[in-house]
């Protein structure tokens, strides 16, 4: 399938909205999506496969008597299939119950430009370029250390285009590209096998450092071979972006979503203006961060993306809203409605959750730790208590820091605590910020976390 043109997508969305209004919708919104991802895959030390997934479809949301219905279809070349989707959305709304808090679809607002989100090279990429990238990464890893076995990984590139039209006059089109290479490896020596160590590089443009990914994955895996147990006590932790992303996603990020606040499902309810974190913590959810992995012109409802200051030097300033949650409080949406392609209705999600870095070098951060742990990968963060923020996770592996230097690796280290306490104990943040999914953050230093050794 060739890429759908802007005009084709917008016209389809407009016609769908029109059809819905004619068939009895009080309001209607159509979202047209197309995405293509091409990848080559590494399995057990060699490149064994290639994939191309092309997906497109249409999601339609309607309101009838303040009851909302949604339907989707991926059959776009048939007018009757699109009409059937409209009828399904209407019948879903009619089968549903009126919602007193439904105050209409969003209104039209001007868009700012999303910068550095599209690279024409990706749209025209030849799969062989991905094979080359994967080969560079693989060679870098295996040449760095013979004990390292790359288990899986690969290189991928793709594009996403979407168009949104609603009956309040919103009409938007956006396109973006993404590329990524990643590698997971273990190191083996005698009977010893390390846990999986992982690195990656993801960008909106086709500028990837595959060699660094390969070398760094190998370095991490090899350094995990030599392990020693550690004792149970309260200690300092340096959390890398991997650990932060896991811990924050299921707890803190949950707490700043307005729907959770409204439902009493957030530890931050009623705490705007209060000190909720150490003064080292400033977080901006920045939907327009240049080149950000979640940057776009508008959100899943056609509301412009924007910058939202969430926590300023530890003080809670605001929450994230979609149109529904915002109107419930008489506010404006912050542009945080997300969609899973055409398959889902919008729901509140972070864009680029940006934890501000400091000028501190990572060596300096390490030198502040006399006795502590450097934490990369966590297991079990998804079993945290999403409301209270209590977590009990395993670090596999973690590296012991002694007098500011990495001493050895340790396995199966359990960390237990409460994220809302932990963010009050962040005594320093570094300057090494990087993009990882929705997170843009540097390493942070947290004091006094319970570590359970063996």
């Amino acid at each position, binding site marked *: *399938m060739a890429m759908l043109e802007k005009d084709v997508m917008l016209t389809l969305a407009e016609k769908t909205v029109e059809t819905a209004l004619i068939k009895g919708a009080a309001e209607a919104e159509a979202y047209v999506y197309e995405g293509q991802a091409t990848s*080559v*895959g590494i399995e*057990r030390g*060699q*490149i*064994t*496969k*290639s*994939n*191309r*997934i*092309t*997906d497109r479809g249409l999601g339609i949301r309607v309101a009838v008597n303040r*009851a*909302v*219905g*949604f*339907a*989707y*279809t*991926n*059959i776009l*070349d048939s007018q009757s299939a699109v009409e*059937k989707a409209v009828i*399904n959305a209407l*019948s*879903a709304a009619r*089968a*549903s*119950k009126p919602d007193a808090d439904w105050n209409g679809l969003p209104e039209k607002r001007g868009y700012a430009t999303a910068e550095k989100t599209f690279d024409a090279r990706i749209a025209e990429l030849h*799969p*062989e370029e991905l094979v080359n990238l994967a*080969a560079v990464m693989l060679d870098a890893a295996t040449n760095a250390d013979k004990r390292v*076995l790359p*288990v*899986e990984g690969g290189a991928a590139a793709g594009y996403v285009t979407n168009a949104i039209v609603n009956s309040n006059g919103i009409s938007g089109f956006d396109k973006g590209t993404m590329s990524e290479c990643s590698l997971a490896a273990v190191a083996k020596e005698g009977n010893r*096998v*390390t846990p*999986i160590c992982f690195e990656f590089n993801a960008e909106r443009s086709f500028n990837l450092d595959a060699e660094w990914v390969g070398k760094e994955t190998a370095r991490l895996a090899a350094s995990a071979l030599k392990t020693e147990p550690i004792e*149970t006590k309260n200690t300092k932790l340096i959390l890398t972006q991997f650990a932060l992303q896991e811990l924050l996603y299921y707890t803190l990020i949950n707490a700043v979503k307005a729907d959770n606040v409204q*439902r*009493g*499902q957030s530890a931050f309810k009623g705490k705007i203006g209060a000190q909720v974190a150490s003064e080292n913590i400033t977080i901006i959810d920045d939907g327009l961060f240049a080149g950000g992995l979640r940057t776009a012109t508008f959100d899943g409802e056609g509301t412009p993306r924007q910058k939202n200051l969430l926590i300023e030097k530890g003080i809670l300033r605001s929450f994230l809203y979609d149109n529904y949650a915002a109107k419930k409080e008489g506010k404006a949406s912050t542009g945080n409605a997300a969609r899973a392609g055409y398959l889902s*209705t919008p729901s509140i999600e972070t864009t680029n959750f940006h934890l501000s870095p400091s000028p501190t070098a990572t060596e300096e951060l390490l030198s502040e730790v006399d006795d502590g742990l450097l934490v990369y990968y966590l*297991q*079990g963060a*998804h*079993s945290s*208590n999403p*409301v*209270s923020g*209590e977590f*009990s996770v395993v670090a*596999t592996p973690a590296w012991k820091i002694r007098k500011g230097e990495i001493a050895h690796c340790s396995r*199966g280290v*359990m960390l237990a*605590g409460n994220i809302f306490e932990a963010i009050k104990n962040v005594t320093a943040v570094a300057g090494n910020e990087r993009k990882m999914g929705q997170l843009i953050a540097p390493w942070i230093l947290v004091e006094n976390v*319970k570590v*359970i050794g063996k």
Partner: protein
Amino acid sequence: MIDVLKKLSDAAVQNFGAEYAELRAQRLNKTMLTVKENRVEAAKQGIEEGIALRVLVDGTWGFASVGSIDTAALTRAVSDACRMAKATSSRLKAPIKLAETKTIEDCVQIKPKENPSEINLEDKIGAALSLSKVILGVDKRVKSCTVDYLDLTGTNYLVTSEGTRITQDKLYVWSRVTSSAVSKGVFTFSREEIGSTAGYELFDAETLERIGEKVAKRAVEQLRAKPPKGGVFPVVLGSNVVGVFVHEAFGHLAEADLALSGGVLANNLGKKIASDKVTFYDDGTAKDAFGSFKYDDEGVPTQKTLLIKDGIVAGLMHNRETAAKFNVEPTGNARAEDFRVEPIIRMRNTYMAPRDHSFEELLEGIREGYYFKSFRGGQANIDGTFQVGIQEAYEIVKGEVGEPVRNASISGNTLETLFKVDAAGKDFQLWPGRCGKGQTAFVCDGGPHIRVRGVTVGGNA
């Protein structure tokens, strides 16, 4: 549809020199609902169709999927997949081979008592709302609840260049219920999932009232619970926790692709890695279970696969590629979430076989320990480190179940822990769930209650 697929398969073999071609098509209908407290978020109805094709060219996989059955798009996809495979094969050292399997021609129709696609949307919404009402009515400290519902019906088609032609109906009904309670600054959280491949009659057996009360009462009960002590303790694990342990801590290691990737099981076939009490299966044949089906997405018949017998590793879960590497029969574990993605090795219904102890006998002799009844989530690493978060737990004091404990989690090394299983109960239950491995698969896991001599318990106290 089978004819369309056959033509594409022929094109891959004749025009592009594919050694093997596998074409899958799907037509799916989905209904999804979310009710939060007493509010219906959008009720959703979806229709999707598409085709996936996988080819082996010069010993390398090429895969393409398109959400369309348009001829031009499909012809292009065949060419894409074959050309990409050829480009990739330039760096291949060991060409991929597939284990032999019988070709199959079959049409699998399912006739549910109550087909969810024939139930009115109004009735499904009504059921979710009444469930929500039950939960919020249990106790005034129950502050919120979310009811998610999904049903999926449709047909899968499979054609291979070897001659397999399968048409297979699909049906899943699933619901997840979560609720939270709040009191004096303490937040608690509880979850339950149900799911079946039978039909909407699932809700006749698992009545809404029972599920709702169970979820809400657990959230309330935890309000008075205390955090566990950290350290190593003897524990009794409930069937639900045994299930997630079998699935996460052991099951993933027994997936042949992960075993080959440096997992701890590859070198342990035929060796004793667990106590005599431990027998594990991955069973795709369990009637109506959420992880059951007749043929996998490579056309291999499903089966009841023995993984561990009395502590000895008996087998792994295979697709045709790993079966060839191990020189064994494929076990029917190749599953794809939908037409968008390739089949990979996935679990089905994975469980521990029951033995002969009563619950009381399991508790006997534990002076200080924990009873972990129900899990919140679990995860494992290829080196055998596992973590399971617990949503319902109690102290065990002098052989008796004591006070509730909240936010506990357990961790350890899988093989070390399997040797410490010293008794298993005579009870048995399967629990439906969804497993993530890049794709989502519907599965069950379960077993009896068991006793473990020592696991590391993470806690705040």
